[in-house]
């Protein structure tokens, strides 16, 4: 905060006069309240890490939050128990398979909706759109019943397949591909490229930015998904991280072990976010993708 003051002085001077630039005092004030908000926002993460490193402690606030007398015993317990690693693997399968499949399917459908003429196109497209309105919970029970009859409970395909029907992804892909110039496809067609080659070599590469944005969101959704895996994965070796860690919370597991599990589950998602931060923020602001 103290280093901020000289900066505040410098910015208005190097630029042309801008009436709306905050005054020095205003900027200091802003740093203060933003920092308070940031600390409040970040506090749960800090507490999570510190308490996970303090096994067997009667957790008394505020002494418990001081970062000393740390031990990694809880992590050894969590990672040594095998379960967390199995759940991590399941979550990775659930998320990665879905990302690849949804991106491919929605890019194909989006391409056809954007650039092709065929009968029933409008009806199909609007039925996609209308379904965005229907809450997931209305479809939950029938989907579960049908999959249970087909033997999909406790299997990867039963878990993954229903989540591939993603109307929002199709809609976004169509929006993006509509903006691509027709000439590109025409030129390839004249060169004798088949439709599938056009799709693979022209459409997909051009869609890279939107695929990246959509991909990271689908990854996030699946990584954090809870109710669906909770219902579909019955045995503990089919659980995803969220289901497994929620079950730890229901048992009498020490707080530090539970938190160590949460930290282990959060690290990959934070890594993914730090790599793809730009796409995440752009996805929210330009496409309005739900977080």
């Amino acid at each position, binding site marked *: 905060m103290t280093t901020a003051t000289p900066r*505040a002085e410098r910015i208005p001077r190097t630029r042309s006069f801008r009436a709306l630039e905050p005054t020095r005092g205003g900027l200091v004030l802003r740093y203060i309240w933003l920092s308070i908000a940031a600390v409040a926002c970040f506090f749960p993460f800090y507490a999570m890490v510190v308490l996970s490193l303090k096994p067997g402690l009667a957790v008394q606030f505020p002494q418990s939050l001081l970062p000393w007398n740390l031990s990694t015993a809880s992590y050894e317990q969590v990672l040594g128990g095998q379960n967390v690693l199995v759940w991590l693997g399941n979550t990775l399968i659930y998320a990665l398979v879905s990302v690849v499949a949804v991106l491919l399917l*929605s890019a194909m459908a989006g391409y056809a909706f954007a650039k092709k*003429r065929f009968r029933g196109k409008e009806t199909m497209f609007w039925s996609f759109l209308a379904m965005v309105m229907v*809450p*997931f*919970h*209305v479809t939950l029970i029938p989907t579960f019943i049908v999959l249970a009859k087909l033997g999909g409970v406790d299997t990867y395909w039963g878990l993954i*397949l229903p989540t591939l029907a993603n109307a929002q992804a199709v809609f976004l892909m169509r929006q993006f591909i509509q903006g691509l110039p027709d000439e590109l496809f025409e*030129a390839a067609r004249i060169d004798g490229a088949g439709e599938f080659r056009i799709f693979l070599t022209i459409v997909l590469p051009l869609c890279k930015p939107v695929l990246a944005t959509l991909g990271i969101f689908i990854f996030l959704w699946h990584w954090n998904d809870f109710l669906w895996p909770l219902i579909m994965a019955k045995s503990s070796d089919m659980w995803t991280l969220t289901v497994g860690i929620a079950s730890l919370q229901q048992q009498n597991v020490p707080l530090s072990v539970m938190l160590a599990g949460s930290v282990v589950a*959060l690290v990959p998602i934070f890594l993914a976010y730090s790599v793809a931060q730009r796409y995440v923020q752009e996805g929210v602001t330009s496409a309005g993708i739900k977080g």
Partner: protein
Amino acid sequence: MTTTPTQARPPAAGGRPRGGSRDSRPPGRSRDGQGRPGLSKRLLGRREARIALIFVLPAFLLFLAFRFGPAIAGVGLSFFDYDISGELDWEGLKNFERMFADPTFWQALGVTLAYSVLAVPISLALSVAMALGVRRAFRGSRFFRSVFFLPVITSLVLAGAIFKWIFSTDGPWSAIMAPLGLGGSWLNSTVLVIPALVVVGVWSRFGYGMLIVIAALQDVPREHEEAALMDGAGAWSRFRYIVLPHLKPTLFFLAVIETTASFQVFDLVYVMTQGGPAHASYSLVYMLYDQGFKYTDYGYAAAIGVALFVMTLVVALIQRRVLGRQK
């Protein structure tokens, strides 16, 4: 290298035989020599349609099987009695009669609405406040944005354990609130459990709204704000009369999104309170989950799903009304 030839080709295509062969290539095998361009064009269109269908069908079939079908089945199921035994009995409106006579349903509806009424405005207000704080680039603005967005990508299931501790008797929340006479565990209080869930819910969602509001703030004309400043308008009146009117459509959109999301609150309740104490945080989706997957009373659970659907539709209708009036 690659752009020049592709740009040159389309005009040349019409005149050269190469271009002609392109036109008649797919139907050429069957229609060659008949010289009816209209027909070959139609056939070409049919071929295009067939390819288009191949592209659309995988997504569309999945969609029919897992969204459209179940949505209709979900509404249909609410008129039946269907449980684990597998017998499907027509019940007519009995599930709904039972729902309206069920005090637990009204409790769940009340909890859901109370949560939404508190969480949505607080979340929106916080989104706007933080967006105003970081809207213009300054040293650290990106850092603040990222910190505020971090909870959005964090699963509430994973954050649940630490928040349970934060709200426990030994936790910091109790210590902070003790001077106000609100110490003790909020999660064990039938009155304070909803506000506690609202705190966590808002923590996990305001960053999303903040990003949306930041984008909308870029459309506020700077000159208007500067003019107001010259006229001696204070920060509050500049916000109230210049910025806020510009934000209205965005805030409205956000309010709809946040309301429908808060109607569906489940993860939070599941990990923090399991609906307790004494059903004080028993939300509608939690009830749906209980009825469907604990008591396997699928028909009744479907009826609760329909109630949720109707609530979402009401919000959507209000949205259309208001948007219509604005136009």
